[in-house]
């Protein structure tokens, strides 16, 4: 478990869908056109049926405790920070394989076309280094987004969490609880949008098929070598420079086989 756990506590009932969080994020993180690190979802009422009350739900990477994106990354470029519990990407290690993108139930990841690598919310790591809060949190007009360290009971996020025990909502896919570190207070809509993580076939093939195959092959080969080595160690050595290609087995005492120096191997 990390020393700290950064998290976002969101009161989506405060959200007015002004998209300031998205604009702030784009600017702070140079998010290219067509991509977003965060979002506001709109639970549109069915006006045809007379409903009119809508609900807006801000979101972004949920920095899960059980991140399926991390599991999908072959190089460990995506990892859960041991310092603060954020799920981050080491761009220098990311090889742009794209495996992590469909592995996220929240669609929080995208391939940044400018760098051709995976990208997503990092809680504005660069801003935090300079003592600022994440851009979306800082700019939010209605302060719907609250950010902080849950392990610090004095942080606003931890306080909100403690105050709202029993009315916290974590959005998870039906069959996969990634244990997100994004908490919604009370009622939030929409709720059924997270999808089951679906790492691409390449990754599934790698972990499910290729990896066992490789490991079995190496293991068998290793065993074979051990067997040969064993045979060699427990038989009398062949003179090193006699040039005779004696198979080790040939010299195994008690093997019952005739010594055939002219055996052409």
């Amino acid at each position, binding site marked *: 478990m990390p020393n700290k756990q950064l998290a976002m506590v969101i009161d989506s009932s405060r959200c007015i869908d002004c998209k300031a969080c998205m604009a702030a994020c784009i600017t702070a993180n140079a998010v290219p056109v067509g991509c977003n690190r965060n979002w506001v979802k709109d639970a549109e009422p069915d006006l045809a049926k007379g409903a009119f009350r809508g609900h807006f739900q801000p979101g972004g990477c949920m920095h899960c405790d059980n991140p399926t994106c991390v*599991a999908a*990354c*072959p*190089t*460990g470029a995506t990892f859960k920070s041991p310092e603060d519990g954020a799920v981050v990407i*080491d*761009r*220098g*290690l*990311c*090889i*742009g*394989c*794209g*495996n992590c993108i469909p592995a996220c139930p929240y669609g929080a990841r995208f*391939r940044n076309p400018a760098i*051709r*690598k995976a990208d997503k919310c990092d809680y504005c790591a660069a801003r935090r280094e300079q003592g600022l809060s994440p851009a979306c949190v800082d700019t939010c007009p209605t302060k719907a987004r609250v950010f902080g360290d849950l392990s610090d009971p004095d942080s606003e996020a931890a306080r909100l969490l403690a105050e709202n025990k029993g009315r916290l909502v974590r959005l998870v896919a039906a069959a996969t609880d990634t244990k997100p570190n994004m908490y919604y207070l009370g009622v939030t809509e929409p709720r059924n949008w997270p999808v089951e993580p679906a790492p*691409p076939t*390449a*990754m599934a*093939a*790698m*972990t499910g098929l*290729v*990896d066992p195959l*490789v*490991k079995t*092959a*190496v293991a*068998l*080969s*290793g065993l*074979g*070598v051990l*067997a*040969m*080595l064993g*045979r*060699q160690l427990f038989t009398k*050595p*062949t003179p*090193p*420079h*006699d*040039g*005779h*290609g*004696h*198979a*080790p*087995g*040939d010299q*195994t005492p008690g093997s019952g*086989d005739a010594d*055939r120096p*002219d*055996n*052409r*191997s």
Partner: protein
Amino acid sequence: MRRIKRHDRSDILIHWFNAACWLALLVTGVGLVANPQLNPAGDAYPGAVRSLFGGGPALLAVHIGLGIVWMAGIVLYVAVNFRGAVFFLKEIFSVSPARDVMWMVKKMALMTVGAKPLVKAGLTPDLPDQGYYNMGQKAFAQASVLGGVVIVATGVVMSLSDMVIPASMVWMVGWSVTLHYLAVGLVFAGLLVHVYMAAISRDERPGFVSMFTGHVPEDYARHHHKLWLDGLTGDSGGHK
């Protein structure tokens, strides 16, 4: 005893160059795989290698750099010794099912379980004559060449992923990771046997030595590579 020239200098050089690259690429490459579901060398290995190289990105850069060196070396070899390369490829991919496959089966049995099971199965423990390469060597060479092609191709795709690969072709990068891993894994499995046979097995010691000297004793050649020896004309030796 007559010594027969088996390898010229570029062959020896490329072999050891290849070996060194393989070792270095393997050490760095395995360090680049960091996923609890994979971690072929244990969970601690990637962290250890990464810190040794000054971090993951540095390790990746070194790995890519080594890969480029490796490819460049091979290209250089082919350029310098094109005929040798062609000979090598021709040799390793010419497989006679009756002689070579039988050799392989018998040899594997003899090396591990001994001759008895062979006899029980109604086979003589005699090994069929082999050419410049025996089938074991051929098999490993084939794996190395084919695996090498896959490794290079997928490596290039992965290295270029953040430079030229468009969004629509990201799947290629994902599959490259998988195939790179597969190819390395399989060649590595063969490599274990190759290293054992060449460096540890007493039987192949002259072959091992020839990878430094370029020559093998005639009787060794006769025993191990009779068809090659028979095909040689004159004293000049060599395989060309």
